[in-house]
């Protein structure tokens, strides 16, 4: 075991066993997912056989990869799948990043993959915001949002923006860095009250700009961002509709990270948003 530490959130609680040096990398990458005192529901095992890294979840084979970077990403992928599945059973869970401003306003950044969620939230963390997730936010109808503080998944295109976050042990050909958010200096908080929704869309080279989104359009985007909407449609529609009615939503075209961070910080300080 990785020191028999327990990790996870939202009911997917697990231990991990792996030989060194992968064990230390896992321990570092999953640092913000530690769940001290929690009872694990299962165990991941990574083993090296015939030059392949094999991942098992309990007694079930998950897959194999030829290199440790790939094995770590496979582990991370499976943790995400299971966590989102268990989270969605209990609460509306949306594909979104989530951070809290220094003044305490929760901001939900809802967008599909490759829209710049992780890059934008990492920029916010570097500016002093608190971290909750870069992937999946679990919502209550009263606007409380719960953290899933998995490691930040920074893809190659973002590496130049965050040279200080280079884990240092990733092969140059790797697809992503897995970085605990605390490396930015951010705190991890367990929950926040959502005060604003931002729909980011990365458009390199375009001026960063924002516009207010009408509430039914905001609820539509949030509902479409819900994981497993097909199974929990009525519950999820009710939850995101309540949120869309109670807080403002802005569409944000991100042309430049620093400008986006400034725009979100200014929006979060507006009277209709600020707590």
């Amino acid at each position, binding site marked *: 075991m990785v020191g028999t530490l327990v990790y996870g959130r939202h009911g997917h609680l697990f231990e991990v066993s792996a030989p060194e040096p992968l064990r230390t990398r896992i321990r570092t990458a999953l640092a913000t997912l530690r769940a001290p005192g929690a009872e694990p529901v299962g165990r991941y095992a990574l083993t090296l056989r015939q030059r392949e890294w094999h991942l098992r979840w309990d007694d079930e084979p998950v897959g194999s990869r030829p290199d440790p970077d790939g094995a770590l990403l496979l582990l991370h992928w499976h943790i995400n799948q299971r966590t989102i599945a268990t989270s969605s059973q209990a609460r509306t869970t949306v594909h979104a990043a989530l951070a809290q401003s220094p003044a305490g306003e929760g901001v939900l950044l809802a967008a599909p993959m490759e829209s710049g969620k992780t890059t934008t939230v990492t920029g916010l963390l570097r500016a002093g915001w608190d971290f909750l997730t870069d992937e999946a936010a679990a919502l209550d109808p009263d606007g409380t949002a719960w953290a899933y503080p998995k490691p930040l998944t920074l893809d190659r295109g973002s590496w130049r923006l965050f040279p200080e976050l280079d884990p240092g042990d990733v092969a140059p050909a790797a697809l992503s860095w897995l970085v605990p958010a605390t490396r930015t200096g951010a705190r991890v908080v367990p929950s926040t009250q959502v005060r604003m929704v931002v729909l980011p869309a990365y458009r390199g080279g375009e001026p960063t700009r924002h516009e207010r989104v*009408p*509430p*039914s*359009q905001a*609820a*539509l985007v949030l*509902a*479409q961002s819900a994981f497993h*909407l*097909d199974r929990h*449609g*009525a519950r999820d*529609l*009710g939850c995101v*509709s309540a949120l*869309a*009615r109670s807080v403002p939503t802005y569409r944000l075209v991100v042309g430049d990270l620093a400008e986006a961070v400034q725009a979100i910080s200014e929006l979060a300080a507006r009277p209709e948003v600020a707590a």
Partner: protein
Amino acid sequence: MTGVEDLLCPADGLHEEWFEDGILIWDETRALLHHLDLRAALVWSLLDGRSLGQAAAELAQELGAAPGVVQQDVLTLGRRLRSRGLLRPCDA
């Protein structure tokens, strides 16, 4: 083809969320999400046992618009909502 005089009701298993700018409807039976803008929402609100013709006449009166133009719009929209499974004949 849905006629002007056919009485239409919302299908079973629909969950509606109303906003100042439109409605979202979750169709539990088909697991589909629909968005209606404000104009379509206004028509939708009238199709609770009325015919498309009755809904068009009420709407034309309310808006002070020409009945012929409103009726064509309501017919087009009503048939579209029916084809998407959101409306059914009331006697079905």
